[in-house]
């Protein structure tokens, strides 16, 4: 991220889909947001672009865990991406951008 000190509001919590993802756009970038109400933190944000499938689709994958790492599975070719580090489990050379997000009252904001 650049020198934005002002946190950007991405959406309301009520816009999120529990245990699943949606996509927001901020500063020209597509950000996939995943809402896991039972976890801490509750919201995860990674790039929406699938560098292997080559399309903006990661927000539409299934979330789950593999060896205790919280992951999303790409809906195109099913590779798993770690929601915390952005790393691709099947190919450690591929890493997605991760974004710092927080829940602020009833909003989801991009910090950093």
């Amino acid at each position, binding site marked *: 991220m650049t020198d934005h000190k002002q946190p950007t509001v991405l959406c309301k919590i009520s816009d999120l889909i529990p*245990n699943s993802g949606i*996509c927001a756009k901020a500063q020209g970038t597509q950000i996939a947001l995943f809402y*896991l109400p039972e976890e801490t933190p509750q919201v995860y944000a990674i790039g929406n672009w699938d560098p292997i499938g*080559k*399309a903006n689709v990661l927000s*539409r994958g299934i979330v789950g*865990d593999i060896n205790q790492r919280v992951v999303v599975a790409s809906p195109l070719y099913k590779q798993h991406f770690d929601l915390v580090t952005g790393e691709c489990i099947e190919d450690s050379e591929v890493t997605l951008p991760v974004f710092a997000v927080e829940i602020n009252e009833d909003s989801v904001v991009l910090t950093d």
Partner: protein
Amino acid sequence: MINVVVIGNGMVGHHYVEQLVNSEIDAKITLIGGEPRPAYDRVHLSEFFAGRSPEDLALTTREHYAELGVDAHFGDPVERIDRDNKTVTTSCGRTFDYEKLVLATGSYPFVPPIKGCDHQACTVYRTIDDLGNIQAQSKNAKVGVVVGGGLLGLEAANALKHLGLETHVVEFAPGLMGVQLDTGGSAMLRRKIEALGVQVHTSKATQIIEENSAGETRLEMKFADGDSLATDVIVFSAGIRPYDQLARDAGLKVGERGGIDIDYHCKTSDSDIFAIGECALFGGRIFGLVAPGYRMAEAAISQLSSDPIPFQGADMSTKLKLLGVDVGSIGDPHGKDPDSIAYTFSDERIEVYKRIIVSADGKKLLGAVLVGDCSDYDTLLQYFLNDIELPKDPETLILPYNAGSEPALGAAALPATATICSCHNVSKGDIVDAIDAGHCSLAAVKSETAASTGCGGCTALLKNIVDDEMAARGLEVNTSICEHFAHTRQELFHLIKVGGFKTFDEVLEKHGSGRGCDICKPTIGSILASLWNDYVLKDQHVGLQDTNDTFLANMQKNGTYSVVPRIAGGEITPDKLIVLGQVAKKYNLYTKITGGQRVDLFGARVQHLPAIWKELIDAGFETGHAYGKALRTVKSCVGSTWCRYGVQDSVAMALYVENRYKGLRSPHKLKSAVSGCTRECAEAQSKDFGIIATENGWNLFVCGNGGMKPRHADLFATDLDDETLIKYIDRFLMFYIRTADRLQRTSVWMDNLEGGLEYLKRVVIEDSLGIAAELEQQMSHIVGTYQCEWKTTIEDPERLKRFKQFVNSDQEDEQIVFIEERGQLRPATEQELQTKLQESA
């Protein structure tokens, strides 16, 4: 620290550098590549024309080399080696010292000295730059000719076909792929390739290439026999020559016909200089394949360590798909040993040719040729590589299965030295060691040994060995569906049914652990739907669905979706057909008649799906469940209403069946068809359940399949009346849904069902398990609770909020770009996408 300079950054030079960095040897590495870009995957070069970009083909990047601490230079070839001062100098005049020098300069295409071969439309096929050149020369061209009918020439022919050119192959010898194939194999290959529209000209020596000022094409080729051929582009693929000039100039020993002479240590005649890969000559031969080059690189590196391993030559067996045709060649395909015995199997109808060459005593395999069917390749290669004694009647190895005894070579029969994965040089012994060290699953063995992570050709064999070894150790073969549930799908179905669970969370809490994943979530989602038939997008179910089910549409490669309304039995009124056209036009959707007798509209952006479906539903359409593991289509033929042979109304039956089972969720998709007489125009015998009319009623067939591994359906019951037919189908489907594995089609389920068809008949027809009533009742619950998921969805604003590209903006995804082709849109290829995005930036 040892100072190593590597010349050449092809596949082998790259492998050398990577392996050296990963070794214990403390080395300062300088790498000098002649091409402008770091190493890329030359073996898969042809995929460039199928849309793979140079970035996709790359094996590494400049940044990666920098991270590894390699001093890498590109686009500046080495011009001179000074052995006295131990330096190399590049064409830009830079000089580097070395202690050890490695030549990995590869080879270049040989262009025969034919008059006119320097025309700009005469190209070669070796580097990414060559491909760019072929592409440029093919603009506005109609015809392309490849000179050379070897392995690479046929690859090049495929490329020209991809570029849309009328393609010819001109070969000097009497047959194609003369090195790898015998005459019969080569003839069958020719036949298959000609059937694909590539014209083959053999025994043709090109004498002159002239500008074709009069004709429609750019060039004219004239042959020694007086024939000629008009073309726009020529690709020379007449063999390769090692890049050995550097070595010659430096006074190193080279072979008579080229190639830098090396010994077992991959050392040249100067013991501080190594040569590896396609520039090296070992035992008088050049290995034109990548795997031997990798072995040379490893041998050369080991010379710098305390534990040197020699290079011992390599096997040149190959298995490939050329223009979609399977071709395999093992050992000596020509039977050079005069005492050898050959067995040949040839079937011109299915265009398969197989030949094996066996030693005089009938015990050893010396060579093999396979064209059109490579399924025996793995087994034959193991016999060859490991000198395994052949069965008494070696011909059984290539005869079609039903011809006699079962020849497959079991995993247990292989010796520990047998190479299983040649990409990563993994032997059976390595696999056994990995299992002994506690890596007790296929996945664990894969990640431990790297076996089957290259071309993937050894996957089936690897699995056999792992299963076999685990069984031999009394280890249970793990049947858990994933790390979250230690159960099979069948067990889960039972647990959910008995426990009356209605949500994934309940099942997870009672029987699983962790959070779930993309395997167990959709499986349990499907079981819940089969049992209770809830709306799949309810809050508690939505996170379980694959994207296709979440958006009730199939995701396409660019992230857009397809729209497939149900057209039961393939019957549609003109008015509805018009609506499909109107909707497609309005939303600019690509329109295609599918293989399932209906119409598919492709390229819908996620935010447009609800509006599209609203219009379709208003016109009387319903969802077609093309996205679900559910009933897809019931195909029909016109039947007795119109057809002079029809004996029953097949259309009416197809409509009834499709409407009865639509929406039924199952372990895998379900397909059906109804034919009006034995002529079988609806292809019912290739379906999960197929119905064929008889004078007296209906014959029911089950467990047929098209797709990857076709299976003919089995005749299940004959001359049924309507009611009995439906009763049997209800029971059959529900029994399948209860007992099949995840993603197991009925065909595979049947093949694994203990007791097979007879058992299934007893359960369904005779009710031997006493569950028939329950199965029927379950089906009637599903039929009674059917809803069109799209209708429910568009009526619920809460559900619709998901159908947006961005939660916080109405913009479109600008990375979805379409190109017009044949009057409709299609997704841009990766290259087109890059160009468009750059233009708009």
